[in-house]
């Protein structure tokens, strides 16, 4: 967690110069963000930095503070303390500038069910054009565009063109003139994302973009996100799925109870977290002996879970290490690690892993301080 704090000396507030295109300004920088709703502290001092043109995943379970983080960065909620800049603008003092530079796609589809896909996009495109014109109005005199109503016809033509382009890009042209309420979940998400792009944002926030989608729709969303990233847009996404973060993100931050518990590339993260979990049904005596070392506990079935990379050699060694007498383990099952396992590993440095594997040869990262020792140099894909 040390590396993202290096740039925190910058003052906040209205006085700081706006530097929208300065290469030095990261796409997102948050310092010490705190937010409480009543008694509940949702964010407890969050620091993160997202370089421009990268895909950044904020990974965490429900209630970790992901949505709150996104809403603060997208200027929809104000933090109680701390500061953040997005696209070089302060989220508090330069709210309008931030809003013009970003887009947000939330967990609830932000499109009208009772409008068609094309109508939704045309409406958003016209609103975005207005916001831009209003923002540039004091300096726009020199441009060729007349600010008066004769522009209306051209404005709607432009909005229609933009809508058509986005419909095509998101594979929705055939459904353009259907009411959104007839769309499938995946189509709705794609339309929602398309609607968020009408203003050509520099930074795109996606709050759980694939939650609730079927596997095929999820793949399509992933394809779209990859395309956006390929065009150099910064993507900040939240997800509950390790696999999604792994598939899409350049860097992954793990959010747990309002703070980042780990941050790094997918490979760095996976080196800390074994790809599988060995579930053992054990005797009562063995349960008590082994419970402190397990990452997963189910006392009612006397089941304990231990992280492993899933290779036969390692599973065998793990079984031998845990149950040298071969009396304690009644049965076992090997499962793909879940996000829970990731969190348990990351938040419980004392949990045991394979005793035999050599440490990873790569340089230590921020994760080292928090995580259990590395298990293998070639972690399986999660």
């Amino acid at each position, binding site marked *: 967690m040390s590396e993202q704090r290096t740039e925190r000396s910058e003052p906040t507030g209205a006085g700081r110069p706006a530097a929208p295109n300065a290469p030095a300004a990261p796409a997102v920088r948050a310092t010490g963000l705190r937010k409480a709703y009543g008694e509940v502290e949702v964010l407890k001092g969050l620091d993160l930095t997202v370089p421009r043109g990268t895909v950044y995943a904020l990974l965490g379970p429900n209630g970790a503070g992901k949505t709150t983080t996104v*809403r603060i960065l*997208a*200027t*929809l*909620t*104000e933090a109680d303390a701390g500061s953040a800049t997005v696209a070089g603008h302060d989220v508090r003092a330069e709210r*309008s500038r931030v*809003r*013009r530079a*970003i*887009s*947000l796609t*939330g*967990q*609830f*589809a*932000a*499109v*009208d069910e*009772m*409008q068609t896909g094309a*109508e939704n996009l045309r*409406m*958003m495109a*016209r*609103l*975005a054009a*207005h*916001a831009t014109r*209003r*923002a540039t109005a004091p300096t726009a005199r020199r441009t060729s565009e007349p600010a008066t109503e004769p522009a209306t016809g051209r404005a709607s033509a432009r909005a229609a063109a933009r809508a058509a382009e986005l419909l095509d890009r998101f594979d929705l042209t055939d459904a353009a003139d259907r*009411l959104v309420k007839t769309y499938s979940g995946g189509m709705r998400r794609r339309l*929602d994302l398309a*609607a*968020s792009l*009408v*203003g050509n944002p520099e930074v795109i926030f996606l709050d759980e973009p694939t939650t609730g989608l079927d596997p095929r729709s999820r793949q399509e969303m992933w394809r779209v996100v990859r395309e956006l990233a390929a065009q150099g847009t910064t993507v900040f996404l939240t997800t509950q799925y390790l696999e999604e973060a792994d598939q899409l993100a350049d860097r992954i931050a793990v959010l747990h109870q309002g703070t980042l518990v780990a941050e790094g590339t997918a490979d760095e993260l996976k080196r800390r977290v074994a790809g599988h979990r060995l579930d053992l049904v054990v005797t009562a005596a063995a349960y008590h002996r082994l419970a402190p070392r397990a990452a997963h506990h189910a006392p009612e079935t006397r089941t304990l879970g231990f992280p492993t990379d899933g290779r036969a050699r390692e599973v065998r060694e793990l079984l031998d290490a845990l149950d040298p007498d071969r009396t304690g383990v009644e049965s076992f099952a090997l499962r793909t690690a879940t996000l829970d396992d990731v969190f348990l590993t990351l938040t419980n440095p004392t949990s045991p892993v394979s005793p035999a594997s050599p440490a990873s040869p790569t340089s230590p990262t921020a994760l080292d301080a928090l995580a259990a020792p590395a298990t293998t140099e070639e972690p399986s894909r999660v």
Partner: protein
Amino acid sequence: MSESLIMTGRSLRLSRRNVDALITALALPVLLLLIFVYFFGGAINTGTRYVTYVVPGVLLLCAGFGSANTAQAVTEDLKGGIVDRFRSLDIGGTPILAGHVLASTARNLLATSLVFALAFAIGFRPAASPAGWLAALGLLVAYITALSWLSAAVGLLVKSPEAAGGFTFFIGFLPYPSSAFVRTDSMPTWLQGFAANQPVTQVIEAIRGLLLGKPIGSTGWVALAWCAGITAVAVAAAGLLFRRRVR
């Protein structure tokens, strides 16, 4: 301003497609006019032809129901993510709410013209000058605007469209203890003070006087002041509630 127009276009499209609500909004005034004129009218003595007496009351009753749909529209918006989307396009609360209010006004004026058309067909004969017509319609629009803004504020206050529906009931009830359907001096004494002075009576008396070409004294201004006051309070409340709701 043009943002409000875009939002109005949206609200109108949504209204047009909400067929159930639209049919109710248009059928209700027609049914109420017929019910009052033919079911109750024979038994009510107002000193004029009852249809002539009751048209302003039916108009306001229906304006109440029609405007209250604004509350539901606002709650629906807040339930989904669309308000956040608008805000992230740097569109504030005012254009979003103004769009609903203007659409509500348009819906109500459609219902109003239906009521007038039917009323003419069954014997409504106003004696208003063109200026009187204009003033009466202006006052009606002011009343619809006031109630629509009030309704928008209620929509921001309540959590669900169902709760917003409760507001419809309350507003729909207000014209009954007024001079809408019977003369207030036919009511019990304890009710007369309220019935004769409440805003609905002021607006109805002003519109009735204007349509019949009778002098209305200061009633028109009092009615307008009520509408302006309610609008001002409702707009301010809506602004505050919007900021509170979107935190």
